[in-house]
């Protein structure tokens, strides 16, 4: 296989991978970010203590997190079909990706918010802040650099999941490397698609690190 044959395949695979990664990450954060906030504020020593709720939420999140993505994909087949109209293909696979990724995102967000110094939250309370003001004007703002760093890690993890999309007939660089590369011993395609994945992960990591550093006013 020469470059003129590889290039269009790699291009299409890259677009599919980015498409799946983008939408899955977005929806994983739409669900995971509020859950991460809830995990922090409802603790026993949080600003809205609800220890019972907190432990139930924690158990559910751990349960979802411990199911391997490929099993989740199979288990969710009927649900995916109902929600997305089909269970096969690049677009429908976003649903199981989101379900697998949001618990991970929730834990990432939780750990970022936990880093915020408790004294700052107390200061905000002492100034007469409402809980909503503390969440949106203090917790999330103080945690921005860490949240961005966490997002870079989450996105690369989700990108890793998309490589298994081929199991449900999805496209992308992973499917290319596995189905059209490894399975038919087309090693050029297998390697070049894999290298492309490595490059994308690198780019996301570098952007994440730089952004984190430039947003952080704590270390100067």
């Amino acid at each position, binding site marked *: 296989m020469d470059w003129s044959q590889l290039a269009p395949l790699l291009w299409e695979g890259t677009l599919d991978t980015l498409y799946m990664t983008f939408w899955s990450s977005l929806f994983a954060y739409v669900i995971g970010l509020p859950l991460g906030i809830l995990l922090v504020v409802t603790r026993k020593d949080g600003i809205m203590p609800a220890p019972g709720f907190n432990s139930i939420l924690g158990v559910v999140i751990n349960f979802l997190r411990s199911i391997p993505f490929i099993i989740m994909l199979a288990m969710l087949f009927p649900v995916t079909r109902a929600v997305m109209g089909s269970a096969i293909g690049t677009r429908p696979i976003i649903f199981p990706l989101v379900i697998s990724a949001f618990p991970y995102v929730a834990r990432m967000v939780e750990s970022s918010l936990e880093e915020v*110094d408790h*004294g*700052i939250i*107390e*200061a*905000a*309370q*002492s*100034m*007469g*802040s*409402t809980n909503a*003001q503390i969440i949106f*004007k*203090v917790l999330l*703002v*103080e945690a*921005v*650099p860490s949240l961005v760093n966490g997002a870079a890690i989450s996105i690369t993890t989700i990108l890793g999941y998309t490589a298994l999309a081929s199991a449900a007939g999805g496209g992308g660089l992973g499917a290319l490397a596995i189905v059209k590369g490894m399975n038919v011993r087309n090693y050029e395609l297998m390697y070049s698609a894999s290298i492309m994945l490595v490059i994308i992960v690198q780019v996301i990591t570098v952007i994440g690190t730089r952004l984190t550093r430039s*947003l*952080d*006013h*704590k*270390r*100067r």
Partner: protein
Amino acid sequence: MSEAHIPQIQLIGLTKIYPIPGGEVHALQDINLTIEKSDIYGIIGMSGAGKSTLIRCLNRLDTPNDGKILIDGKDVLAMDKKALRATRRRMAMIFQQFNLLMQKSVARNVRYPLEIAGVPDAEADKRVVELLKIVGLENKAKAYPAQLSGGQKQRVAIARALASNPEMLLCDEATSALDPMTTQSILDLLKRINTEMGITIVLITHEMSVIRQICNKVAILDGGKLVESGTVDEVFKHTKSSAGKRLFDVLPSHTEKEDELTHPALRIVFDGESSSQPIISRLSKDLGIDVNILSANVHQLNGNTYGQMIIQRPEDPGDVKRVMDYLRQFKLNVEEVSG
């Protein structure tokens, strides 16, 4: 009937118990304390005396198990969330570790209380400039807290605390993380805020010098109990509790040494109205009695002498009376102490 006077802050039977594995700690035991408007009330104690718990109870960062906290006669513990938030805005707080928003500029930190209170942007901006001027940090508006020194951070915290136009300011070991020079400048600022704006200040500290420099009233906490309280002058001249004596350096700071005071002795207190040296040497000359100084701990402050001296009591009871009468002429407080 005339209306009864309502103090600004009144603590009644305040009690706080922390559960610990295998028992409980009585952090505060039946604390009764009255703080009047425009007081600078210092609460002093060794670490673990409960002073931090006490000040944190005032704005309900900590919840006591029993007792009442009356602010202008209204019980903070009975307030709903909304009333509590309103009270907290009248009662600002600064902290040992400053607790500034690290990801926000100095100006945004000071602006925060105005933002959450819904003050219009233009008005808030104007107020931020004024507040930074009060604390002498006009040129640091755009800086981030990480770029400031400890003293500057505490100034930002003070400006932020003043933003809501509070009537009271709670200081939780506000100078304990600062060097002596910076401590002095922060204390001067607090004093100025008290005098110029009439803001009541409640501060906790483990340093006697802080009390001496700016407080008009003091309470001594020891093991969760309030062992002494009153005006600084009064408590200083007639220190009764052993915790108080330890803190005021009346006795050498280690309790073992209290036992070493085997001779009957006289304790002379210098309250800033007279200076020490000439009086002792004149006493010797005028009365012809040798004065044996057992221990002395005096500080010069603003040209006045504060502190106390322990001298050996003369053997002859007549001499004792003569010495005491002589010293009292100078309005010094003298009392007999024994080991």
